[in-house]
């Protein structure tokens, strides 16, 4: 199989690159193990700023982003500065959500934290009351003790979110704010808006423990957009081996395709950091496992960590080294047709930001270069 570009990794960086290239009428394939950092995406594109190009690109995929100066509410009741975000995230001009808040949780759902939110909001002058939602379709999930997680509830809410509206009407008194866990709109992004329209107070969907419902939805939407544009999304597959001709990467062999290699003129490595296995570590060193690329990492293990868990951890800044065009380096020399994008870059390119900002900026930079 021959493509213009093969992309390794189906997270934010890989899908953004794939969409940009398909829009420019290049043929591409994305190799995705399935999970990515989008599964614990908070919904905020930190370090990206008010980027019109991102807003347009995501808008075409049906993902509405917004940006306003202000604050957003975090899942433990603190506030953080607003940034470009999914429309699921509400912004506030000051660090205060309103006069009185009613915080509602599903009975037995332990990945949402009303008590922490209440304590945080009270300290900013908002009176808080907590309440319990009893929805039969959620109760039934508890037959299996490990299935009361965000996605399970979200799947039920796709069908019965109106029952939550009825419950809210019973529980609501005079609060001007209602806070719910972020488990609405998994398959239909219009649900949060419809729910807001049906209740008599300002609704805030506050974050839960992973998996992130808006994150999973974003990945689905980006993937659908990519496939609609003609991209080949190889789900549940994994790049296993690389075939070079001198410094030029010719083929990738994958687990599922066996003897049928993926050929391309260009390749983009967007396989993530340690968690996604884009980087791997052993007692003797840190490496990029697929190509053995150059990595910015100390060989002294003691320099990988800060003893204080809450301090910045040096290992999280390690990444694949690149030239100014994001060509990956191997043995000190740039490979002519292999690029690195997203969190596999670590903090090697601080001007590109980190997290979602780094994923999108690096994908834009590489695809602009390839389509120029």
């Amino acid at each position, binding site marked *: 199989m021959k493509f213009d570009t093969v992309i390794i990794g189906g997270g934010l960086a890989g899908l953004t690159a794939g969409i940009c290239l398909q829009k420019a009428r290049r043929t591409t394939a994305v190799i995705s193990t399935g999970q990515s*950092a989008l599964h*614990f995406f*908070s919904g905020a594109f*930190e370090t990206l700023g008010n980027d019109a190009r991102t807003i347009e690109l995501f808008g075409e995929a049906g993902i509405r982003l917004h940006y306003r100066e202000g604050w957003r509410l*975090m*899942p*433990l*009741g*603190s506030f*953080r500065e607003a940034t470009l975000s999914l429309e699921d995230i509400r912004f506030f001009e000051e660090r205060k959500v309103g006069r009185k808040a009613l915080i509602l949780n599903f*009975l*037995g759902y*332990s*990945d949402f*934290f009303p*008590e*922490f939110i*209440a*304590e*945080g909001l009270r300290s900013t002058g908002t009176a808080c009351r907590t309440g319990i939602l009893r929805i039969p379709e959620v*109760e039934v999930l*508890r*037959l299996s*003790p*490990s299935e*009361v997680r965000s996605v399970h509830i979200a799947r039920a809410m796709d069908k019965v979110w109106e029952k939550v509206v009825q419950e809210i009407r019973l529980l609501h008194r005079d609060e001007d704010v209602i806070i719910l866990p972020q488990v609405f709109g998994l398959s239909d992004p219009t649900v949060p808006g419809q729910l807001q329209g049906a209740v008599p107070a300002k609704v805030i969907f506050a*974050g839960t*423990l*992973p998996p*992130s419902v808006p994150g999973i939805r974003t990945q689905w939407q980006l993937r659908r957009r990519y496939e609609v544009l003609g991209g080949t999304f190889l789900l549940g597959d994994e790049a296993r081996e690389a075939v070079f001709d001198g410094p030029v990467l010719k083929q990738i062999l994958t687990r599922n395709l066996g003897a049928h290699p993926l050929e391309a003129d260009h390749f983009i490595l967007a396989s993530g*950091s*340690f*968690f996604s*296995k884009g980087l*791997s*570590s*052993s*007692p003797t060193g840190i490496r990029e496992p697929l190509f053995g690329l150059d990595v910015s990492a100390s060989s002294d*293990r*003691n320099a*990988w*960590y800060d*003893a*204080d*868990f*809450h301090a910045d*951890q040096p*290992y*999280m800044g390690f990444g694949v080294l690149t030239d100014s065009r994001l060509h990956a380096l191997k043995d000190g020399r740039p490979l002519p047709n292999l690029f690195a994008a997203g969190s596999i870059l670590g903090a090697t390119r601080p001007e590109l930001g980190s*997290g979602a900002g780094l994923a999108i900026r690096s994908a834009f930079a590489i695809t602009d270069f390839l389509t120029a």
Partner: protein
Amino acid sequence: MKNNEFDVIIIGGGITGAGTQRDCAMRGLRTLLIERSDIATGATGRNHGLLHSGARYAVHDGESARECIRENRILRHIAAHCVEETEGLFISLPEDDPSYQQTFISRCLEAGIEARAIDPAEAIRIEPSVNPALTGAVVVPDGSVDPFRLCAANMLDSKLRGGQVVLYTEVTGFVREGDAITGVRTRNVQTGEERTYYAPVTVNAAGIWGQKMADLAGVPLRMFPAKGSLLVFAHRINNVVLNRCRKPSNADILVPGDTVCVIGTTSTRIPFEECDHVAVTPDEVNLLISEGAKLAPSLASTRILRAYAGVRPLVSADNDPSGRNISRGIVCLDHEQRDGLKGFVTITGGKLMTYRLMAEMATDVVCRKLGVERSCETASTPLPGSEGKSLRDVAEKIWENPTTAQKAMTGRLGSNAARLKTEDRYDQALVCECEEVTAGEIESAIERLDITTLTDLRRRTRLGMGTCQGQLCTCRAAHLLAVARGCAQKEREDMRDFLSERWKGCLPIGWGDTLREAEYTQWVYKHVLGL
């Protein structure tokens, strides 16, 4: 009698203190136990969790060996829910002295320890993970024991018998009347509150910190701290305890316990001042892995969960200040006879295995001083959780079709599991998925088991001790505590401390999947939750 007056005060909430309090309480004394931190935070919670058969000591210390096998049999009976009857193998490798095995077996038998030689094929059949290069093996009645659970069960029994326990309270001085200690001055380390308690006898069971207590009381006691480092692996490689059949050395015991297995230990003398801040070094990690792999080769490629270190409370056996005559045996000092100080007893040295015997010895001295004549019954009276019926009977009574989580709970709590909240499905929701700790078990623990912090909760339930090291359960459990106690602000700090404490044990072995999990935890708490 006032509420700050007791018959005996015990300093130290490790297994020795907990055992001594129970023995005293069983002999009808009004007891108070004072601990500066949580239960089992010193050497009690920082060892292998090995139920020694005594075989390890048989060749060079027959007395310790005899003590061990006697206590081994007693613990299987009185603490059945804390013990796993795994058996143990002492394996010989090609580099070991081949004549050692015969000496070993005859010394074991002399000490009353069953020891049976088997051929290598049989050893591999019993324990498939064992090094296949072995040249011989001896089966002995080793097992594993959960020291947290054992300590908690002793304390629970004392409380059922009217004993009092104050945690997070340090001893700042003693009340002296002439040549006698008659009380203890304390300060709560969390609130700063100062209180004085009175009793005609005080027992110093503070382990390595016993030296400080003796200093405060004005009597000489020289401890010789020896650090021992251990590694916990993410799953059980072995189901039978593996030892080397040779002179005891570093990293030659691999013990399966609960969901994990543990290799250890090293032994390094450290200055007394370092006792509160021991850390595992990279050299120790390398040594533990390379030596451990000689027992079970798959250990070299198995994920390591944590590294930890404890301090052995070794003590000089007599008044020898040089430390040349260090004993690993039990040292029970009646300071009235030794130093002319009345009302003060030190019990130290010894090991987890012999805690009950140490408690008996200390309690005998206390009773002699108080003129109490009741004899010790701890060798025959089961601890709470190990009474009566088999665990299977208990489980069946509570649950028609136990889930794996319920089996895990019965394993942790024994017959106490019958008192857990299980009435509705909410109580069965999993908080810690690795160790299958339910919301009901957490809530029962918060209500009944003297919990101040998440780390206290971990010691009593195994919360956060599994493969993910508290990734998601930290926040879930903190929220349950915040709801139960109405202390959300404190729990936010508690969560930070718990994550720091988990990281401390991951850092020395931070590579591979451990580093992946650590990175994920960073993302969840810093970026998703905004802690």
